[in-house]
């Protein structure tokens, strides 16, 4: 049975894929992760998670054109699928509903979407 819940790391990566858009391949995602979170991560770990997200159907991917920078090798560009989009939204909504039930902040915080 395929797991369809999102882990924290998975969710972050999924969001990064969305942010990077046409540039979303393993190396760039790992770099972006490191610069956004200040945490070190190996490309292998990112790749493995992207692969898993693909298996879960949240990401689709295809090989792009070659560039000289990588010794002429192509890269695998990831894009968020509709179900990926949905699961991100669900996760956000779920957290929002939790925030809204949180008394100390509920009055003070304003979320703009």
């Amino acid at each position: 049975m395929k797991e369809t819940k999102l882990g924290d790391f998975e969710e972050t990566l999924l969001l990064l894929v969305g942010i990077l858009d046409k540039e979303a391949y393993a190396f760039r995602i790992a770099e972006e992760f490191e610069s956004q979170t200040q945490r070190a991560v190996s490309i292998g770990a990112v790749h493995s998670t992207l692969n898993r997200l693909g298996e879960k159907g949240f990401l689709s991917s295809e090989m792009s054109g070659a560039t000289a920078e990588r010794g002429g090798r192509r890269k695998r560009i990831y894009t968020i699928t509709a179900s990926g989009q949905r699961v991100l939204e669900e996760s956000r909504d779920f957290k929002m509903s939790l925030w809204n039930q949180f008394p100390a902040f509920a009055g003070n915080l304003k979320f703009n979407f």
Partner: protein
Amino acid sequence: MKNSKNHINSESNLPPSGRIKGGTPPRLAEKLLLWFLKDELAEEVLGDLDEKFYSTAEKHSTRKAKRNYWFQVIHYLRPFALKSTKFRNLTATFMIGHFLKISWRTLLRRKVFSSIKIGGFAIGIAACILISLFVRHELSYDKHYRHQEQIFRIANQYSNAGDFGRWTNLQGPFKPILEDYVPEIELVAKTVFWKWGDVGENHVRKQESVNNIYESGFFYADPELLEILEIPLLYGDQKTALSQPNSIVISKSKAEKFFPGTNPVGEQLILNDNSNQPYTIGGVMEDLPSTTHLQGDYILTLKDRKSGPGSTGWCCSNYTFYIKTIAGANKKALEQKLVEIRDTYVMDLLAAEGVSELDDMRNYRSFYLQPIANVHLNPEEIGDYQQHGQEDLVWIFGGIALIILVLACLNFINLSTAKSIQRAKEVGLRKVVGSVRTGLIRQFLVESIFYSLISVILGLAIASIALPTFNQLADKTLVLPVNNFWFIPSLALAAIIIGFISGIYPALYLSRFSPIDALKGKTKTRGKNSLVRNGMVVFQFTATVILVICSLVLHKQFNHYMNQSLGYEKDQVINILGLNTIEASERDLLKEELLRLPGISSATLADYLPVSGGRITNAAFWNEGRKELDPSFEAATWRVDEDYIETMGMKLTQGRNFTKQASDSSAIIINESMLNQLLLDDPIGKQVVDMFNNKRTIIGVVKDFNFESLATNVRPLAMTRGKGFNTISIKISTNELAEVTSSIGKTWDNIKPNQPIRYSFMDDRFERMYTSLLKAKNIFIIFSILSITVACLGLFALSAYTVEQRSKEVSVRKVLGASVSRLFTLLAKDFIKLIFIAIVIGIPVGWALSEEILQGMANTIDLNWSIFLVSALVAFGIALFTISYESVRAAIANPAEKLRSE
């Protein structure tokens, strides 16, 4: 695979647009990646890692990028990325957990046996770790220079029909000759390490202070030495730090001691209260690393010195030369050129100086350039004044470490197969339930690797506990390099390899059992293996016997030296040191005051002592009138006062001692060995002449006494009358040492209140001359103990094995009425035979080895039978003790237990 090959090729065809010069991702890591990575992922992953590599290389460094590449590759070891073919056999992989569990349970079930197995292995590994550290340190001397291949020490070489020798010292004026005529030599520096001038120990004080502090580690060098040996300076400049006359460079730790927290360049230091000649600090150097042959904290400059070191001419060979050649200079050609330069420019100068034997020099003497990295172990055996490591010792140690490891592995194999019957049932059952042989082999390999890992961890613990003791014995400051990135992985790798090698035989052996036989309790296989097993025990005990013999011989030799009559009395003599800071008149006053104290029978002012740490001077001598005719010989020349011979308890065999009369100032007392060199029948009143043309009349002959190591023969020695500057020696005639020393201290304080008294007992200094022998002895004893331990474990394994094989026989015999002692004899007989063979082989080898060890020394003991008897008895006793445990247990066991299953 084809696919991935293409990727490598495309990489080399299409270099990454030349952004980083020379840096490409490590090929090995790339290969590893392609080996395990799914083919369809290769392209994108290689691309990603390449990009990562070049961006890291740009941001940081190529080295960091390479390291990071490895890191990334290792982190691709994830299930999703692995080639499915490589790791298809997942059941076997997952069985490892089960195997480990079984191994752990087996270990716990037989605690004694397991602890012997692991403990023995761990001891072997600990010994190996320690010795490897030692060997690594010994081999790492002077390998850290940037211009490693361009730094040399110059040595003289004499080679004439079997007569061959090399030594360092050269005349001072060679330096300008080399600088002017040899363009291949970029820099030249003279140095002085032997006890001359202020080399060695001195009393130091700051200009403004009155309190003298005792310091050691002084030597002289030309300003260029700092550049040649690439000594980094914290303050000051390499080129100029020693270039002013009377400048000094001190080490960082000494700078912090004398001038905490400040830059001391320009400050002045006074040596030995000689305030007429202060030394100005020209620089502060980093402390010299422990892996350089050159050790010291204070470098005094030789620049423009007017007297003593630095000022001698063509007469005397006083300096060790270090050079730095230009890049790419040919060593052989340069050596040849030095000879030519000598013949062209130097010979005339030497002749003008009156140096004799110039033809000898022209014909047989040449030069040898010793690469800096060779200086410590000195395989060329160049004579000099420095401490060296012993190359033989390094290899002997390495060999012993390997042997101990091999023995430990053999034991491991032995112990694993010995208790096979218990495991046989397990094997049988596993086979019945469907395990294939490869599975069983895998199980036993996992088990032995598991044991070996535990042993390595334990061995590491033992090594770290034993390290301080080992350091003391080997006179080192070794540390376990646990923080180095390679240390733990390489230990783990070693553990796996050792575990595999020592596990493969037991694995094949145990997995071969046929299930029916195994379950019935029948394990055959005897005879064929017993030769190997017995051979192993013989080998181990032979090694033990040899090491015990060597330790005993060294022990006896050491005691022999300590108790030998030396020709002088070393007991009850105190040397008070550091008198060079007081005036000559005060020294005489001190001597008078001391003689007035009760319990002091005599005192002598002389710097030359028959123990280490005294002054050394040598000169060439001839019979009067034979200087141009005879070859010279070298004799130690000592200046002593008229009380010396009495204080030291030396004996005159002919003639008389010095007196205070002025006529005795040109008198000389020689030792018997010098008398033999001079070939005089009636020496008293005859004259000798030295290299400076001083004529001296022989007034006495002193009985030979050992003034250098007892391991060498007594050299010629000549004494002339004079007074020491540094040392006064006093003979104590009472046993109240504490009282005498305190009264001596008071006398000293009256004369020199701002310098604490420094004294040593001569018998202590004598013993210190033999520390290297003592070290060798202790190390051999330790290895003997280790070897005995390992050999005992081997024998224990064998006895356990045999007893198990014969348990039914023993039970039947017991039922039929054999007594316990009869059974014990039956079981022990076979082993005693093996031990006997080991002793028969071991004694001649040990004998030969001992002769070899003693050959290099003089005054050696005779090897007699008692040494060999003792070592044989030791081997026998230990063996008997070891086998008795299993044998007695078998002999007193209840026979019904063993026979019940039939």
